[in-house]
């Protein structure tokens, strides 16, 4: 068990290293240096600047320095565009915001999606079932970048109930719409997965046995059916997490929440490569670690997998 967990975490190391190398190589492919602009400094100054930032070294030494700095000091270096601000400052500022509404969305998607799917399966072929299927198909073609503007049009422009953007230190009216926009499509997928898996479980022999023993339907569902039902849902949580991290790019841009996605998009426009790389590596590492934890949980919960 312990060995399995250690092994699983060790296998994330090459992934994260390759992520760092890919981003570094992409950045090196970019034309121009960070100091090239309308006013080129004199060559001596340029040489000094390059020496200061280590840009006069060959590329593999630069890469080595960059990667070791991140691993041992958690230092992503200075931003190319925002003078006097390091990538770390921007991450410190943006990440908590993204984390707060991201975790809420994750909770909402699961706490609404799983019960909805279970009810749909238990009340198979009733209006609840049809409604759940309808919603989940609809959500498949209404991703967060369409949900978000529609929500703003309805709740801000027409009804004037909620503010159309801003963060306001996480006051709940500002959090509601980002959470709905981010969680809806994942909620629908989780509901559909739960429904399908629960239907299969409810038709299996051990459930029939449990019913034949005369157990109440509550006991059958919560003691016997719940665990095998949730296994396929659990394996979807990794991809759902990735999707939500990606979705935060849209949410931050549309709702101007000041989260990390907003900085990422701005960085892509202003070609702030060090900021782009820093955010990619950080969020990439977080998602890789999260899917590892999900994998381990899955192995613990699934009796068919021997550790």
């Amino acid at each position: 068990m312990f060995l399995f967990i250690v092994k699983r975490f060790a296998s994330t190391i090459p992934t994260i290293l390759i992520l760092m190398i890919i981003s570094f190589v992409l950045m090196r492919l970019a034309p121009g240096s960070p100091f090239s602009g309308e006013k080129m400094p004199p060559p001596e100054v340029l040489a000094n600047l390059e020496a200061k930032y280590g840009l006069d070294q060959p590329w593999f030494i630069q890469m080595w320095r960059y990667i070791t700095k991140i691993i041992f000091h958690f230092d992503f270096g200075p931003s190319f565009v925002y003078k006097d601000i390091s990538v770390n400052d921007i991450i410190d500022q943006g990440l908590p915001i993204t984390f707060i509404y991201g975790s809420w969305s994750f909770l909402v998607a699961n706490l609404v999606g799983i019960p909805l799917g279970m009810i749909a399966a238990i009340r198979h072929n009733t209006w609840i079932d049809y409604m759940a299927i309808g919603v989940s198909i609809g959500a498949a073609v209404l991703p967060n970048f369409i949900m978000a503007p529609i929500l703003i049009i309805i709740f801000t422009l027409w009804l004037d109930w909620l503010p159309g953007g801003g963060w306001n230190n996480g006051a709940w009216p500002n959090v509601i719409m980002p959470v709905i926009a981010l969680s809806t499509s994942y909620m629908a997928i989780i509901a559909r997965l739960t429904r399908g898996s629960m239907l299969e479980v409810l038709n299996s022999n051990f459930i029939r046995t449990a019913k034949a023993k005369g157990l109440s339907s509550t006991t059958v569902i919560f003691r016997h059916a719940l665990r095998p039902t949730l296994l396929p849902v659990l394996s979807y949580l990794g991809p759902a997490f990735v999707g939500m991290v990606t979705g935060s790019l849209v949410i931050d841009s549309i709702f101007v929440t000041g989260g990390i996605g907003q900085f990422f998009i701005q960085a892509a426009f202003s070609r702030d490569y060090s900021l782009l790389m820093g955010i990619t590596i950080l969020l990439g590492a977080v998602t890789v670690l999260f899917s590892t934890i999900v994998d381990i949980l899955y192995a613990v919960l699934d009796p068919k997998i021997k550790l």
Partner: protein
Amino acid sequence: MIALNKQKREKTVEILSNVDLVKGRSLWQDAAVRFRKNKAAFVSVIILALMALLAVFGPYISVWSYEEIDWGLIGDAKANGQPSIENGHYFGVDNLGRDLFARTLQGTQISLMVGLIGAVVAVSIGLFWGAIAGYAGGRVDNIMMRIVDILMSIPSMFVIIIALAVLGKSIIVLFIVIGAIGWMDMARIVRGQTLAIKNKEYIEAAKSLGVSDQTIITRHVIPNLMGITVIYTSIMVPSLILTESFISFLGLGIQEPLTSWGALINEGAGQMQYGVPWQLGFPLAFFVVGLYCLIFIGDGLRDALDPKD
């Protein structure tokens, strides 16, 4: 008695000579029959074909081109830019006075093309990668699939955005980058199938005849993977279109004056508050209908080609 026998014999000969040989049906003919029975999928094919025809030939019936500005309507979209037949703006105009009918068709062209080209790029890489890994086996297989595992766990959207920022926001870069993210799943599926195929008797026969590995892969392995390839391609197209729309929505994908579904929806959503609902409505309708059709076609093809389920 003899006469009777003779009569009987002649009758038999006649019957036999009239009966057509029972034709064998191939997997593909079977699948076509099953697919045609699936009403949702069949209707989706028709709608999507109409949409594609409209996207290709529509610009010839359109009065305006997608980048032309109607100076009489610029900045006046709310009052006079609504959809009308008389002035040739069938879907109305956008806030810059450009014809939305032409722009929507142009966006449809780009979006469908991204889905198609991206899928072709992804499937070809995945098909060869998976077939080679599965057929070679052993250490080569291990290394190749380990690379796939590692690449799969990297959040692709961030890498796409970095690539677009670094390599420039051109349409060709977009096609290649979008294609380059989808091939890993395909490689995994194909590898699994190849492992099953390579132990079949016909591969053994080919080997004993001295056919080279390369020829076995291209002539015997890959044709037998076509079913799964078609299924996977059809499932991948809508997700690639979604990816492209996502990127274009953020303003990093297709650049003006070209446009795509995502970019049009972004513009429309931004103009919504100025009372021009058609600018969001028409692109959104095309997007939703197009994606629904593609999803139904994918489901239909899966059911038709994979009778086990």
